[in-house]
C-alpha cells in the first residue's frame, strides 16, 4: 500500500469517476450485498458514525433511542452522506425501521431511499417465498440507480465473489493466532470491507492470508467478543494493553455476518442464483436482529469459545439496543454454566473509550488471567 488511504468520500468519488459506480449508504446490519455488487453499486455501510450526534437533527430522536439511529439521522441530515446516491435501510430493529420513515418522509434524506425487509423467525416456506420476492423487489428498485438490469449471470458472479470474501474473512477470524496483525490492524482490515469495492477488499484479505504464520503469532489471554460494532476501536487497544487479544468474534458488524464455507448458500453455482441468495441470507451465524433464538445464539457462542480457546467473554452492547439486550441473560447463563467469566460493557458509540470502561476491561482480563493461573 502506498500513500495515505483515501477517505470514504474520496473513495466514493473515485469509484464513480473511474468505474461509473453509483454508491448507496447502508444502515446495519444484514442486507443482500451480493445484489448491490451484481448491479455495480458500491455499498458504504453507516455504523453511526461514532461520537455525539452532530447537526440540527441531533435532537429529533429521543435520548432513549440507540446512539446508532440518533447519529445516523444527524449524519444524514447534516449532509454527511451527500457523496452517495441513495440510502438502504434494512429492517434491523424498530429504531432503524423508524429512522427509515423519519429521514425519508420528514426530512433528513431527500435522495432515493430503499428498504429491505428481511423476514423474522425461522426459514419457513412462507418466509422463503417472501424473502425471494423482497430481494427481487429491492433489485428492481435499485436497477434505475444502477443504470442496468440484474442478470442471473451477474448475480451468480457476485455470489461467488462474496463467498470467497466470506471464506477469507472466516479464515482470518477462525485462525486468529496465526494472523500476524494486532487486533486494531486486523479489525481495520476487516472493517474496510464495509466500504471497499468487494474485489479490492478480497485482494487485501488474500494478502493478509498469504502472510499467515505456521505457528501462533499472537499470544495473550484469548477473549471472545460479541456485541454490535467495535466502536470505539480503542476497546481493542485496551484489551491488547492488558495482554488480551480477540480470539473469536461475534460482533454484528464483523463475525456475525460471516458465512462460513459449507453453510447453505456458500457454494453451489449450479443452483438458481436467487435460491442461493435466499439461502445465503439465512446462513450467517445466529443474530437477534434476524430473530434467532437466544438459546441458539448462546450455543453458537459457546462453540465459538471452545473452538478458539477463549477464556473470557466481552459482551459489548449499545445502550438501548433491544435485540442485543434481550440475549444477554441467555448468554450469561450459558457461560456461567461453564465457569467462563462474562463482562457486559454498554456503550453509546462514543468516540473515545471512557476511563471507567478501560478500568473494567483491565479488571476483567486480570480476573480471567487469575482464573487461568489458579
Amino acid at each position, binding site marked *: 500500500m502506498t500513500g495515505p488511504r483515501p477517505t470514504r468520500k474520496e473513495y466514493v468519488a473515485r469509484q464513480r469517476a473511474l468505474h461509473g459506480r453509483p454508491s448507496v449508504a447502508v444502515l446495519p446490519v444484514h442486507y443482500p450485498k451480493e445484489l448491490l455488487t451484481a448491479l455495480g453499486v458500491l455499498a458504504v455501510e453507516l455504523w453511526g458514525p461514532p461520537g455525539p450526534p452532530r447537526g440540527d437533527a441531533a*435532537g*429529533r*430522536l*429521543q435520548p*432513549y*433511542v440507540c446512539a446508532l*439511529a440518533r447519529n445516523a439521522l444527524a449524519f444524514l441530515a447534516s449532509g454527511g452522506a451527500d457523496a452517495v446516491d441513495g440510502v438502504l435501510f434494512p*429492517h434491523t*430493529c*424498530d*429504531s432503524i*425501521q*423508524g*429512522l*427509515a*420513515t*423519519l429521514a425519508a*418522509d*420528514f*426530512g433528513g434524506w431527500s435522495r432515493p431511499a430503499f*428498504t429491505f*425487509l428481511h*423476514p*423474522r*423467525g425461522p426459514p*419457513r*416456506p*412462507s*418466509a422463503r*417465498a*417472501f424473502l425471494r*420476492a*423482497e430481494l427481487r*423487489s429491492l433489485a428492481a428498485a435499485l436497477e434505475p440507480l444502477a443504470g442496468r438490469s440484474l442478470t442471473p449471470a451477474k448475480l451468480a458472479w457476485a455470489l461467488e465473489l462474496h463467498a470467497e470474501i466470506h471464506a477469507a474473512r472466516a479464515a482470518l477470524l477462525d485462525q486468529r493466532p496465526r494472523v500476524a496483525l494486532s487486533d486494531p490492524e486486523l479489525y481495520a482490515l476487516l472493517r474496510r470491507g464495509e466500504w471497499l469495492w468487494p474485489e479490492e477488499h478480497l485482494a487485501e484479505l488474500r494478502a493478509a492470508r498469504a502472510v499467515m504464520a505456521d505457528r501462533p503469532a499472537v499470544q495473550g489471554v484469548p477473549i471472545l467478543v460479541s456485541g454490535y460494532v467495535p466502536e470505539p476501536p480503542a476497546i481493542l487497544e485496551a484489551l491488547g494493553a492488558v495482554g488480551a487479544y480477540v480470539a473469536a468474534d461475534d460482533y454484528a458488524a464483523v463475525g456475525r455476518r460471516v458465512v462460513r464455507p459449507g453453510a447453505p448458500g456458500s457454494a453451489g453455482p449450479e443452483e438458481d442464483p436467487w435460491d442461493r441468495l435466499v439461502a445465503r441470507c439465512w446462513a450467517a451465524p445466529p443474530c*437477534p436482529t434476524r*430473530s434467532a*433464538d*437466544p*438459546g441458539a445464539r448462546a450455543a453458537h457462542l459457546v462453540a465459538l469459545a471452545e473452538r478458539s480457546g477463549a477464556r473470557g467473554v466481552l459482551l459489548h452492547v449499545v*445502550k*438501548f439496543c*433491544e*435485540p442485543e*439486550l*434481550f440475549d*444477554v*441473560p*441467555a448468554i*450469561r*447463563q450459558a457461560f456461567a454454566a461453564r465457569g467462563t467469566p462474562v463482562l457486559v460493557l454498554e456503550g453509546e458509540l462514543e468516540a473515545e473509550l471512557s476511563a471507567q470502561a478501560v478500568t473494567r476491561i483491565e479488571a476483567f482480563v486480570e480476573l480471567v488471567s487469575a482464573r487461568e493461573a489458579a
Partner: protein
Amino acid sequence: MILRRVQYEAARRVVGPVLASLDAWQRRLRRRRGRPRAGPFGPPLQSTRKLKELMAVHYYQGRFADGAVPVAWVTSGFPVEVLRPLGFHAVYPENHAAICGVQRLVPALSDAAEAEGFSRDLCSYARTDLGSVIAGRTPVGRLPRPDLLACCTNICQTVLYWYRALAERLGVPLVLVDTPYVYGREAKPHLLRYVRDQLEELVRVAERVSGRRTEPEALAEAARLAKVGTDLWGECLALGRHRPAPWTAIDGFFHMAPIVSLRGTEACNAYYRLLRDELADRVRRGVGGIRDERHRLLWDNLPIWFAVRELSTLFAERGFNFVCTSYTNAWAEAGSRIDPADPLGSAASAYTHVILNQDLPNRLGILRRLARDYAADGAVLHSDRSCKPYSIGQVDLKERLAAELGIRVLLLEADHSDPRAWAAEQGENRLTAFMEGFA
C-alpha cells in the same frame, strides 16, 4: 381433564360472576359509607361495573384454564380470531402488565427480571411480564400456563424478543406472525401474501396444539364477531366527538380491555353495545366526562398507567378533557378491513395495516384526522421510554401538528408502566405550564 373443564366453566358461569357481584357490592357499600364523590369528573359510567365484572371473570376463569382448554398467550395485535374457533383461552401479557402498572407493581416485578440479566432499558411491559413469570407473582391470582405463545410483530419487534424469552423459559412453542413494515399507504402484494401464508401456517400449528380442526364457518363467525366488535368500539369512541364529550379518553384506556382481550367473542360485543348506548344517552342528556369541558385534547401513545388518575385529574380540574387517543383508536381502525367471507386474507390486510406498522406520514394523517374530527385544540404526545416504535418521530410529529393545525402540542417524557422513569413534579409542572398557555 373433565374436572378441570367443569371448574373452568363454573368459573365463568357461576363463581366468577358471583365474586364479581360481591366485589361490586362491597365497593358500593364503601362508597355509600364514604362522602359523596365531588370532583372535576362527570358522573361515573354505569357500564364500568359491567366492565369490571367481565374482566374479573375473564381473569378468574383463566386460573382454571390450563388443563381444561388450550391456552395461548398472545400479543395485543395478534389475529386472535384464528384461535377462537379452536377453543383457546387467550391471555394478554400486555393487558396483564398494564394491570401491574396501574397497581404500581412494576418496580418489584422488573427487579426480578433485572436480577436475571434483563436490562432496565428494555420495554417495561416485557420486564413486568418476565418478572411475573420469574417471581411467580401476579395481581390476578394466577395466570394459566400457556400451551402456545402467539406473537405478531405489527406492534413492535420487542414482542418477538420478549416471547422468545418466554418460550425458552416455559418450554412452550412460539408461533410468529411477522408483519413487515408498510412504507406507503398500502402494503405490497408480496408482503400481504407472506402474512396470509403465515396465518395458514398458524392455523395448522394451533390445530396441532389444540387437537381440534378449524371449521371454516366457525372461523368466519369469529371474524364477523371481531369486525362487529371493532366497529362497536369505534362507535363508542366516535361519541367523544360531541361537545361535551360523554366520557374521557382516559376512561377509554380502561374500557378498551375487552376489545384487546376478548375480541372475536359475543361477550365483547355485548359489552360495547351497552357502553355505546350509555354514551349515546349521555350525549342526549348533555352529560360530560368532565363537569366543565373548556378544552379538548388528543393523547398520543400508550397511557402512563401508574399515574393515569393523577394526570387526568390534573387536567380535568382545569377544564381539559382528553377526547381522543391514537392508542384506543388503533383497535377501531382494523374493522373496515376484516371480511368474514375471507377471514385469513382480510386478517392479513387488517393486522398489517395497524398504526405502528405503518410509516410516519400515515401516523401524522391519523393524528391530524383525530384532532380535526374531535375538535381538539391541543395534544399531548407521550414520549414513552418503553415504546420506541410509538415514540420515534414524535419530535417531528409535534412540530407538524402544531404548524398544520395551529394547536398547542406538548411532548411529555415518561414510561407506560415503570414509575422509576417518571419525574412526577417536573412532569406536572410541564403539564401545568402547557395548560396555562391556553388561557
